[in-house]
């Protein structure tokens, strides 16, 4: 197990290096710079002499290779640079955003697993029934929904009409402010999980070992709990892992809509303002999160299904 963990962690390093290089080069060829981005749709102006000083201060005039080498060397020591926009260390900015992002992603995934797996399971146990049809219509709708539109509808219904929850903001960081953005973010994975769980459970229900278990006189409840659930879980966990890993990146729209102070909204803002060090920091954070979750999922396979072995 430790060997597997070591190998997986070692794989993270080249992947991160590739991501760093890609993001750095992409932003180098994009038109516009942080300084021209300060124009704020014509609301601010900045004079050429100040622009020159800023370019010099931020090292934007240095050759690309030199800037890249400096960036990689600094990143290796955990220094993600200074934000062009706030002139604060990027690590400090990210530190303030990680917990709200994690909270949102965890809440969204909890919602997705609870609702999605339950619906998928119930649908698979009674294929063709009303609950199956309703669950699958819900799943397809959930997959097709725009997060932005669905979020607005949630705001409209639960905040404006029913007055149950606040429509936006972080508040004190508590559950009341978390519910609506978490549902908006979690509806996509929820739908995917419902469909995946249904397919996986149906597959296992028709397997030989389930038939054998039933023929031995094992109760249906025990068959489902002991054989079906555990075997279907491998596929479900794969989807949970992939979705969980990518949710932090997907949260961009929801975070902006609900004014949720996560990594996603920081990244979008920084992209628009060409704050390269911050964008790079955000992307690195999101990629790292994805890779770590994937590694954990790989390890989880071994625990759930002892037949799986990594070489």
């Amino acid at each position: 197990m430790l060997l597997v963990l070591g190998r997986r962690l070692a794989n993270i390093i080249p992947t991160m290096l590739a991501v760093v290089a890609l993001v750095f080069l992409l932003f180098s060829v994009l038109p516009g710079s942080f300084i021209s981005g300060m124009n704020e749709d014509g609301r601010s102006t900045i004079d050429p002499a100040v622009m020159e000083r800023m370019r010099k201060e931020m090292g934007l005039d240095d050759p690309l290779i030199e800037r890249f080498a400096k960036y990689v060397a600094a990143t290796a020591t955990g220094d993600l640079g200074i934000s062009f926009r706030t002139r604060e260390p990027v690590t400090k900015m990210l530190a303030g955003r990680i917990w709200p992002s994690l909270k949102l992603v965890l809440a969204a995934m909890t919602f997705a697993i609870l609702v999605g797996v339950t619906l998928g399971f119930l649908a698979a146990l009674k294929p063709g029934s009303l609950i199956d049809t309703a669950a699958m219509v819900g799943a397809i709708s959930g997959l097709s929904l725009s997060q932005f539109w669905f979020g607005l509808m949630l705001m409209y219904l639960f905040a404006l009409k029913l007055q149950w929850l606040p429509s936006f903001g972080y508040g004190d960081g508590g559950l009341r402010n978390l519910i609506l953005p978490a549902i908006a973010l979690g509806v996509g994975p929820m739908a995917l999980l419902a469909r995946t769980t249904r397919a996986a459970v149906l597959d296992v229900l028709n397997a030989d070992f389930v038939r054998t278990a039933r023929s031995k006189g094992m109760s249906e409840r025990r068959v489902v709990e002991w054989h079906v659930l555990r075997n279907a879980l491998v596929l479900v966990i794969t989807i949970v892992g992939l979705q969980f890993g990518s949710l932090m990146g997907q949260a961009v729209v929801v975070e902006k809509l609900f004014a949720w102070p996560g990594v996603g909204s920081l990244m979008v803002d920084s992209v628009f303002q060409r704050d390269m060090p911050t964008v790079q920091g955000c992307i690195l954070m999101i990629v790292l999160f994805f890779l770590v979750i994937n590694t954990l999922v790989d390890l989880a396979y071994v625990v759930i299904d002892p037949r799986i072995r990594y070489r």
Partner: protein
Amino acid sequence: MRSNENVHEGDGLMRKLAWLAVAAIAVIGAGTANAQQTPRKGGTLRMTAPYAASFGSLDPHVTPRAQDDIVGKALQRSLYNWDTAANKLTLELAKSVSASADGLTYTFKLRDDAFFHNGRKMTADDVIFSFTRIMDGSKGYPGARYVRLIKGAVDVEKGTAKEISGLKKVDDYTLEMTITDRVDPGYYFFGGSTAILPKEEVEKGNYASNPVGLGPFKFKEHIPGSRVVMDRFDKFYKTGQPYLDKLEVLIMAEAAARDVAFRNKEIDTSILGPAQYVAYRADPQLSKGILEVAEMFTRSMHMNLNSNKPFQDKRVRQAFNYAIDSNLIISRLVKDKAYRATSWLPPSSAAFDKTVKPYPYDPEKAKKLLAEAGYPNGFEFEWTTSQNESWGLPIVEAVIPMLARVGIKAKPKLVEVTVLTEILMKGDHQALIASSLTGPDSLATLRCYYSKTPRTACNYTGFNNAEFDTLLDSAAQEGDMAKRDEILKKANNLLYDEAPVWFFNYNKAVLAFQPWVHGLQPNPTEITHQYPENIWVDASSPAK
């Protein structure tokens, strides 16, 4: 055909009169509301910051952003501020100022009752410290463009001096400032980027995380990407102010979400876009809480006189202004959330000429002018634009068929909004539509068309007109501000006639507010920049 054109021209005049009346009513209305009711002490105001999903920095010297100055107006103060009711600059941190006969040395009698939030009194040393910090040559502080006006500031910037020679402390509350140009220093020292900061707090090294200023509210909490919370500062120098106990500035970059939150009474103010403006005006309740003002932003299509030969002919440039039905676009596409531009300077400028009539929509005259200029069959040009809904691609797409009617073929080139300024500075365009800050300093604004102003500074059209230059030179030499404004008025009118741009519109900024909010100001420099010491909420406010 002719009767239609007359209707358009008549519409334009009526519209112009109507909006001037509306603007006047808005200003008078805001003032009257204050006068009729006694401000209530206490309560919380929940303002919104709509321009981005975060604040850049709470250190005002670091950031030139309008979004950041929303908070800056509460936490910080500069030498001057903008008095919306009087529509002019006014002294803020000084009680009086006198100018020398040559108009180059100003003596400020500073306030002796202005305290920083750490309890220390402001003195002349703080002004000197702040301006010297801004000129630090190793940093790119945006306010340097303004402080550079002071004699010797450039030497500090270059590193050849440690002190700005043009700043002299006479005593703790008297400051002498020598400037290099005969301009009103108020225009240079009223923005947040020249705020006066306490040295001891800045030198602690974490100023942006714990800003200490001279403003009516003191810093309490900043949740990056979410909100800034401030409490009333009891030692603020304006007696009895501020009225509010607490001020929250909530980040809400998404217009649709802001709309829901405003209707749900979770926020007290909200900036409206064109779509919401229509809906709010149509709503009997919401329409009662709308504050409008012609902001100092002029939307226009810059013609690059150096890169496109037809644009070098005044008749061609005028033909553009005749060929485009600006009123129609403003009413249909911009949903009347703009005022027709009748010059480069906005209506709030003292040099704005209220008698000038807009170019009427007259395609026949446009064709005639093009023929006279040697382009009877028109010509083709590339039009750079962003996606902006009020002055971007939707507008360009509406104008293309109008230009086609007179034979001009426009090929739109879409770019991201963040690169517009860079393109303008490089001159890498034939024509480009943008929104430009056009106030409050009329002389500085018009200097963007002065022949000696480089393109990188702001002469984006490459305009070169000897008569215009002479007028600007005269204005710069004139010490009497009223006479200077008269000269600038002539220059502004000359520019309108020369038409180096298609004059489209002035932004109509619209701020929606809840019925319990009083004392908001229709600030034409930026409507979100409210001086919060004037604002109060009545007992019906749900925010505690």
